[in-house]
């Protein structure tokens, strides 16, 4: 379902991505790696750089989507720095192709596979095939329903949602709107990341004693759907003071609904993840803030985990990377990190 989020902003983001790709060839060392405590253990004789480069395959569900493209660059960056030959395979949103690429990687006798699967279910088959060939797999985002893998790199959705919730609450208190309500346009709650995001955000609301309005779940992920949800909440709850979108997808619909209601000054809009436009909207206060995942960082960490495994070192089974809580107040400060780790530019 991550794929759906990304596809929506694909056109806008891809143009920017191509320009930025050439401008930044290295990444900043100043990266937040909270909750990624990795056990490093030197293995005698095991050096990442050998005479013949080990080949790593990165299979990504759809490299045409910026989020995955940024993550791919993160993987590439680490491969380069650690001396691995990396083949990036984009399945282009095809389950068949994803499997064909997996089989191809196996036949190429790669040393390891990093996969950002189309679905956690599809990942199970990939893991099964790789296991059959005795090839280690690191999963970067999405996750798997089951199967054996080296490490799973993901974002801490609950923590990120909690932080953005606290940020919103503080703003509402500062504005004296803490008696108002907050509505949520949520991603499907059957997804683990959706549940984590809602739970983290609600915790922050409860702590600030801010009342909730409706929670409406996206079904078709369109801007129109977001617009309608927001409009309904605005009409239903006169004391509505904020709307939190659990995705960056369709943020324009929300902005349009608020604008049409004439409550631009009385309703705050918060989001999740990032769009390049956010770098403009947040400083202007049109968008109060957003919790931003770091795909580039995830890609880097994925390959590093694979490297540690291949080097015979212990690898943490689950590595959760922090989500950046960006608001009007700190966007300037966090901008380099946003550009590199979030937007990959």
């Amino acid at each position, binding site marked *: 379902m991550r794929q759906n989020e990304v596809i929506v902003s694909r056109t806008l983001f891809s143009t920017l991505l191509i320009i930025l790709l050439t401008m930044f060839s290295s990444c900043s060392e100043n990266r937040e790696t909270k909750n990624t405590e990795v056990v490093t253990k030197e293995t005698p004789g095991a050096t990442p750089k050998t005479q013949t480069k080990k080949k790593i395959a990165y299979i990504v569900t759809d490299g045409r989507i910026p989020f995955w493209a940024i993550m791919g660059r993160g993987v590439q960056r680490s491969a380069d720095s650690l001396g691995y030959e990396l083949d990036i395979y984009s399945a282009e949103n095809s*389950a*068949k192709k*994803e*499997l*064909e690429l997996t*089989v191809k990687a196996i036949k190429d006798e790669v040393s390891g596979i990093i996969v950002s699967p189309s679905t956690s*279910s*599809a*990942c*199970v*088959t990939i893991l*099964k095939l790789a296991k059959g060939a005795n090839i280690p797999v690191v999963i970067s985002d999405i996750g798997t*329903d*089951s199967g054996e893998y080296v490490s799973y790199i993901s974002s801490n959705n609950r923590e990120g949602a909690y932080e953005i919730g606290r940020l919103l609450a503080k703003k509402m208190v500062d504005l004296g709107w803490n008696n108002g309500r907050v509505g949520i346009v949520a991603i499907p709650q059957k997804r683990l990341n959706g549940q984590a995001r809602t739970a983290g955000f609600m915790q922050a609301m409860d702590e600030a004693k801010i009342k909730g309005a409706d929670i409406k779940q996206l079904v078709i992920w369109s801007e129109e759907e977001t617009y309608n949800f927001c409009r309904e909440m605005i009409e239903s709850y006169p004391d509505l003071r904020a709307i939190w979108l659990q995705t960056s997808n369709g943020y324009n619909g929300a902005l349009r609904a608020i604008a049409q209601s004439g409550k631009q000054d009385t309703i705050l809009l918060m989001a999740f993840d990032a769009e390049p436009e956010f770098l403009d909207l947040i400083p202007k206060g049109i968008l109060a803030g957003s919790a931003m995942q770091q795909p580039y960082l995830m890609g880097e960490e994925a390959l590093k985990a694979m490297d540690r495994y291949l080097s015979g070192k212990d690898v943490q089974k689950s590595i959760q990377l922090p989500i950046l809580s960006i608001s009007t107040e700190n966007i300037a400060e966090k901008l380099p990190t946003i550009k590199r780790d979030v937007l990959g530019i």
Partner: protein
Amino acid sequence: MEFKYNAHERSLYVTLGIIIVLTVTIIMSIHTTFSYLHTKNKILQEIKQSSKETVVSLQKNVTNLIKSYSINEYDKLIFNAMQRKDNFAIIVEDYNMGKILGEKSFFSGKIRDAQWNIVDYDSKNSEHGRALKKCYYSDKYEIISDTGSHLGTISIYISDNVMNEELNKIIIGSVINLFAISLLLILSLFITIRFFVLKPLSDIIEVIKNHDDDGIPVDLIPTHGSKEIFLLSSTMNHMIISIKNSRVAFKEQKSAMHYQANHDALTGLANRILFNERLEQSMMKAKNKSSKVALFFIDLDHFKGINDSLGHDVGDKILKVVTQRLSKIIQKKDALARLGGDEFAIIVEDLRHGQDASLLANKIVKLLAQPITIDEHVLYISSSIGISIYPNDGISSGNLIKYADAAMYKAKDEGRNNFQYYSSEMTELAFERVVMDTSLREALKNEDFIVYYQPQVNGESGEITGMEALVRWKHPTMGLVPPSKFIPLAEETGMIIQLDQYVMRCGMKQMVQWHNQKLKHGVLALNLAIKQLNQKDFIPMLKRMFEETKCKPEWIELEVTEGQIMTNPDEAIKILKQINEMGIKLAVDDFGTGYSSLSYLKRLPIDKLKIDQSFIRDLPDDEEDAAITKAVIALSKSLNLRVIAEGVETQEQKEFLVQNGCKHIQGYLYAKPMTASEMGEILKNGFIS
């Protein structure tokens, strides 16, 4: 009587228990077995149905998932389908994925391991392959897309492990149920039997145990309980009551039988058995008291003739009258018994002298000589009494009876109507009598008798008019025995009938012989005992005899004594008429010695009167005999009867008779009885002087 049961005999409770336990166990086992088999089949059907449904359901979903290369998705579906424990493995053969892998097929699915956990199926794992082969049941379905292309197959494998577990549970459950139900049933049946069958039976046994010496329960059996027990108890009570009543009846019957066994049914007097006991007791008492006991043996004179002529009814009535008379005459302490027939006995106790019995004996003789009237018949019966004395004559009851019996015969010999004391000589006479009886029977058998003939003569002309046949016994050792020695005995024993018939046949044959010799034989007089007349077939017998001998009836004259006719004159008249109708002449023998009634005499179909020799003997000097003789001759003339005198021995007698109108003479004057040949010689002359 105590009945001891054998230790090997089971009680009803145990027997019923065994039957109940076996029956319930067998029934429940059969039921459980059928239930088990039924359940097994049902489970099998369910498993197959379920597997089919599972696969069909999977088939639809898996088709799309194969098409969309969602291997893990159909693995999930398979995993869910595998939650049914009887599914051992579900394997999808994916042609699409096979193509990706460069192989014919890709196998994916779930299988159970040894711990029955669901694990991924590995087609290269030989363990998995072997496990699949062991499966109880498997089924395979093609997976075909909407467009008709073959996407793969789906196979389901069913293990019987779960089924066996299930069946084992069923078996255990059934066995527990079997035990529980059986136990419940058995307990119920035991309790039911205990309370409704055995308890009542025990109560019955308790009551039956309390029985008297004869084994009959003292109390009645309680009748509560079921219908059958009630019926049993009621029936047993009925039996007990019946037995008790029967016992009372039996005692009464026994008493009656004892009475009957010891008493004479007709007269109610003691019979010979009781008489013997009483005699023993009397002897014992007499011995203790040093007194004497007289035993009277009383025999009625001519009773047999009365019985034969008038019938037993009359005879019985006579016996009753005699009993009454004797009962009145004896003292209370004396014992009266009827020993049989016309024989009575009396025990007279406390006598000082043997001769003291004479007084009573005289009384009895006189008393019984008085006429007895029965059904308009006036009958004259006398008695002959023999007396033996204890201890003078004997000290045993047997001897006393025997001696009294001998004395009685002595009295008979003395002319009846008297009593005689026993004397030792009588024993010899009695013995002689016994010997005579035996010899007489032998003689009849050997035809040792000879018929003698005594001529009957016309006293005026000396012409022989006939003769009387008289029998003589030619004894092999004793020589000729006179009739007085054996005729009374023959009459008593009934042998007189055979003897008379013998004489008649011989006489008739002889008459025919004389006739054939052209001799003038006249009429042959034959003596006819009244017993002959009482024989039902006498007339036919007589006719046969005439036919056999070819003798003519007109040659024969039958003589019947006056006394015999008068015992039952009506019957005698009836038979004599029949004889007369045959053409046979009839004569009244010994006329004048009996009590002939003139009215009867008139009615008798007789031709002749024969004056008894007792009247002839003292003629012509005895006036009384002369008067009687004349009267008889006059009577015969008035009745238009011929008259003959017998026992004529002197010329004076003959002349007296002839002068007075009795010209037919028989006696020694003319001839003694003689043999047939002698008689034949006389007949040749036709006259005798």
